[in-house]
């Protein structure tokens, strides 16, 4: 019965792509049977990290996939760009910190919206954010 794990990939270069990415992520999560609230949390988190790609890196991609781990299934979102990177990740994760005149809640907010959240970033090389929402057991 185990179908091959679903995956969608959306190139991010403009604000249309931000909407496309969050809608694609939402649909995939819906197929996995997540609740309406979780779909909205995932879509909101994707919107934040996708907008950061357009704002700070110019372009990049979002990959949303189904994952299974220790008998649980979930939705993993990977946001990847080869932009300028984040100098001080800890600070970027603080509420209100922005270098672009935003509200500065995109990254800390996305972390609160999802269950797992990790950033890997290297100045001059780019940023990868991996975040997961688990389906209820």
């Amino acid at each position, binding site marked *: 019965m185990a179908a091959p794990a679903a995956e969608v990939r959306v190139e991010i270069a403009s604000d249309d792509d931000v909407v496309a990415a969050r809608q694609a992520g939402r649909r995939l999560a819906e197929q996995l049977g997540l609740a309406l609230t979780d779909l*909205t*949390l995932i879509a909101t988190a994707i919107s934040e990290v996708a907008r950061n790609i357009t704002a700070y890196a110019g372009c990049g991609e979002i990959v949303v996939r189904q994952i299974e781990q220790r008998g649980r299934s979930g939705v993993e979102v990977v946001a990847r760009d080869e932009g300028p990177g984040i100098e001080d990740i800890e600070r970027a994760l603080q509420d209100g910190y922005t270098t672009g005149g935003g*509200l500065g809640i995109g990254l800390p907010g996305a972390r609160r919206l999802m269950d797992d959240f990790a950033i890997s970033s290297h100045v001059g090389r780019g940023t990868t954010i991996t975040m997961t929402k688990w389906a209820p057991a």
Partner: protein
Amino acid sequence: MPVPILKQGSVLIASIQTALTDTDVLRLQNKLIEQVGRYRSRGIVVDVAAIDVMDSFVARSLRAIAQMTRLRGAEMVLVGIQPEVAFAMVQLGTSLEDVHTALDLEEGLALLESLGGEAGRHGGPGS
């Protein structure tokens, strides 16, 4: 997708019909700024019932419109926030405490009416 703005008496009603890109949000913002001046509006109702996601960009724009409106002695009311969208906003950290909200358009218009009592209306009935 442009957001239609209706004029009903001295109130502007913006009814968001679909997911908005950041560009759509900025256009809506500009249109409201322009029309609120042109029509000397007393209030704005923004209906977000059809919105899929209220992220930090949308929240910031809506708050800016609310504050702009207040600086003119008028008021903005946000209506139709779906429960799951409201929940996501709280997790994200944009609970818009300083923005008036109501359940739906009808209640939003009623709220505007009652708010108008303080700043806008003078010589109201029976007082």
